[in-house]
């Protein structure tokens, strides 16, 4: 038996889905969180009939005739796969608007139960809903629930299960003439006059509006956003998260575990090469990554609180003002906010954007947002090169916003995109964020992080260890620079000279970073395990001999702003649905990261040390070539535009 959850965005479908199935799908206090359908079996507790029940969570939709890609998923599903019952979630805080979709669902013939959600908000506002009147008017069952506290769910499931096999009577529009959207909404308002008793006058300025006057203010909005982000990043990377990670890295993975393993292996007499493989390769590399677990957990805990409070939807509104200028709208912000966790769901969230150009642009720009996997690199470079400061993490975030805006402008110039889409976002009311939700999301992220470290990172790491321990004749070599890895790295290394990065190790680390960004840290850990007795994370250790602080920062930027990991590149390919745009996007990302690192190295070195950095002359050549190339492309784009206008 298949029960589908359908309703407006942000009405609480996923919250209900999670409550019914025990899953931990993403819940956020804004519209457009779910962009794909999810199916799961109902929890035993709610399995009240013999036939197994499957629950389907759908993206939110305002209407059965879809506007955007994810709305189409919903209407396709209810129209074509014909679920046995539809639970229509109606947002108790927004009843009138939600019922529009309800009236359309009622015409499909599939049995419908209306789940009037957020009953807690209705009660708090002092509104009174007459369920019987509503049932009579709509001709379907209405069950009042509170998804967050799981109140009324038994009743809901029972009602839904009993309806299986019945046929929904179409709506009786009575005195309604015509069937257009306006008439429909008018009809809804008439039935609500009888069944909904609102206590407050809607035009009253409420608490949320008062907060918005400050945080979504024309001038204060952006500085407040920066301050909040600064706080969150400083707290997670250099504050509590950094402190805990430091302990884990230096003591647990730096001393306790390797010492214990070495002692044990020496005691039982394991071959030294095997010992090195496990201790320096596998455990060293994976440990260097897992050491950052507390940092990831603290960050995602904070971000989740911020999101659930409703603040992030305001950020979309604040950024909309600036994004308009580059041909993006506030809609593009949502993929980017999701992308701060992982670029893949971020890229997938671009489905909510109708305008094709805007969608492409967002798909190309979203991976610039530092995702969770990039945090270990940021944190590593921050502790090694800039100890006891708190600006590195936040500064990367600010650079990311800058890169997105400048990158957007450049894309617009390169491809002459004229987007004039406008953006309306429904702002949910502020609420006290749910600690439970934040903890669930935090542990989800932690689980994912550990899993990733013990699968793909472990595999890559072991490979890196082999490649640095053996030469092409497959003989173990003590001298790293004669190893397979060194010779592979040396092929790429010349490309990094204009950026001021010298050493095959840097090339090798960057390459492994494309498989998964955490690999940059793991590869360094493996490579420098022999060069230094100290853990990787100690200032003044082996890593710090490779860089000056300026080139270190540039290398960090290079790894963060070149194309994302393979999996995210795959997601870009899938969402773009055009090989041409996909490759253009990749080339664009690559050039952005490359030029950014180049500029940081050379301008930074000139200003801070008053001298030129390594690779200065090649850099000048690269820069000239780049400028010529970009100018040519822009000229060509403008030319074809004029040609287009002329022929029209």
């Amino acid at each position, binding site marked *: 038996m298949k029960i589908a959850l359908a309703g407006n965005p942000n009405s609480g479908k996923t919250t209900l889905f999670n409550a019914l199935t025990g899953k931990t799908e993403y819940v956020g206090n804004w519209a457009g969180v779910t962009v794909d359908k999810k199916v799961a079996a109902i929890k035993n507790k709610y399995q009240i009939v013999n036939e197994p029940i499957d629950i389907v969570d759908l993206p939110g939709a305002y209407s059965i005739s879809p506007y955007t890609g994810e709305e189409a998923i919903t209407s396709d599903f209810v129209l074509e796969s014909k679920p046995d019952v539809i639970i229509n979630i109606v947002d108790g805080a927004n009843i009138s608007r939600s019922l529009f979709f309800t009236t359309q669902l009622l015409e499909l013939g599939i049995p419908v139960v209306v789940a009037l959600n957020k009953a807690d908000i209705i009660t708090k506002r002092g509104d009174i809903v007459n369920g019987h009147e509503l049932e009579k008017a709509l001709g379907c069952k209405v069950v009042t629930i509170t998804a967050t506290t799981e109140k009324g769910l038994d009743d809901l499931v029972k009602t839904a299960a009993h309806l299986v096999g019945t046929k929904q009577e179409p709506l009786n529009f009575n005195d309604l003439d015509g069937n257009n959207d306006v008439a429909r909404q008018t009809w809804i308002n008439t039935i609500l006059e009888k069944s909904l008793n609102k206590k407050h006058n809607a035009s009253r300025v409420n608490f949320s509006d008062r907060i918005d006057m400050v945080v979504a203010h024309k001038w204060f909005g952006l500085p407040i956003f920066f301050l909040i982000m600064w706080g969150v990043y400083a707290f997670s990377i250099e504050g509590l998260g950094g402190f805990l990670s430091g302990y884990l890295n230096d003591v647990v993975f730096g001393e306790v575990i390797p010492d214990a393993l070495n002692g044990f292996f020496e005691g039982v007499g394991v071959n030294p090469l095997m010992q090195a493989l496990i201790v320096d390769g596998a455990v060293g590399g994976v440990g260097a990554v897992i050491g950052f677990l507390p940092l990831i957990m603290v960050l995602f805990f904070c971000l989740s609180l911020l999101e659930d409070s409703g603040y992030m939807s305001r950020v979309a509104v604040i950024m909309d003002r600036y994004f308009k200028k580059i041909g993006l709208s506030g809609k593009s912000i949502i993929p980017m906010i999701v992308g701060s966790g992982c670029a893949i769901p971020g890229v997938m969230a671009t489905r909510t954007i109708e305008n094709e150009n805007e969608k492409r642009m967002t798909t190309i720009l979203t991976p610039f947002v530092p995702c969770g996997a990039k945090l270990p690199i940021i944190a590593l470079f921050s502790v090694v090169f800039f100890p006891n400061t708190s600006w590195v993490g936040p500064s990367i975030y600010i650079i990311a916003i800058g890169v997105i805006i400048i990158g957007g402008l450049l894309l617009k110039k390169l491809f002459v995109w004229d987007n004039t889409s406008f953006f309306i976002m429904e702002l949910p009311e502020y609420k006290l964020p749910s600690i439970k939700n934040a903890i669930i999301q935090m542990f989800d992220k932690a689980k*994912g992080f550990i899993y*990733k470290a013990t*699968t793909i990172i472990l595999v890559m790491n072991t490979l890196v260890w082999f490649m640095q321990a053996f030469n092409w004749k497959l003989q173990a070599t003590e001298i790293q620079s004669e190893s397979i890895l060194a010779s592979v790295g040396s092929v790429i290394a010349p490309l990094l000279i204009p950026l001021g990065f010298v050493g095959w190790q840097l090339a090798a680390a960057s390459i492994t970073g494309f498989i998964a960004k955490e690999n940059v840290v793991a590869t360094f850990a493996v490579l420098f395990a022999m060069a230094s007795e100290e853990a990787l994370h100690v200032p003044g250790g082996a890593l710090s001999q490779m860089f000056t602080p300026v080139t270190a920062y540039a290398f960090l930027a290079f790894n963060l702003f070149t194309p994302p990991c393979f999996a995210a590149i795959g997601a870009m390919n899938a969402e773009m649905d055009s090989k041409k745009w996909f490759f253009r996007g990749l080339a664009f990302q690559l050039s952005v990261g490359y030029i950014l690192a180049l500029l940081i190295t050379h301008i930074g070195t000139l200003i801070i040390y008053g001298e030129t950095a390594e690779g200065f002359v090649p850099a000048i050549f690269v820069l000239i070539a780049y400028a010529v190339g970009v100018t040519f492309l822009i000229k060509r784009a403008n030319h074809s535009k004029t040609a287009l206008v002329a022929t029209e």
Partner: protein
Amino acid sequence: MIPTIIVGGIFGIIMLWALIHAKRDLKSNKCAGCSVNNCSSRK
């Protein structure tokens, strides 16, 4: 020699497990973090 083989064997099994999962995730185009939380499961 024998301890080396035992330790190597255990490590080999762990590696095999990691390899199978890593390959599956890369193939299905999922970030590993997602596949455990099922966050981007596609049709």
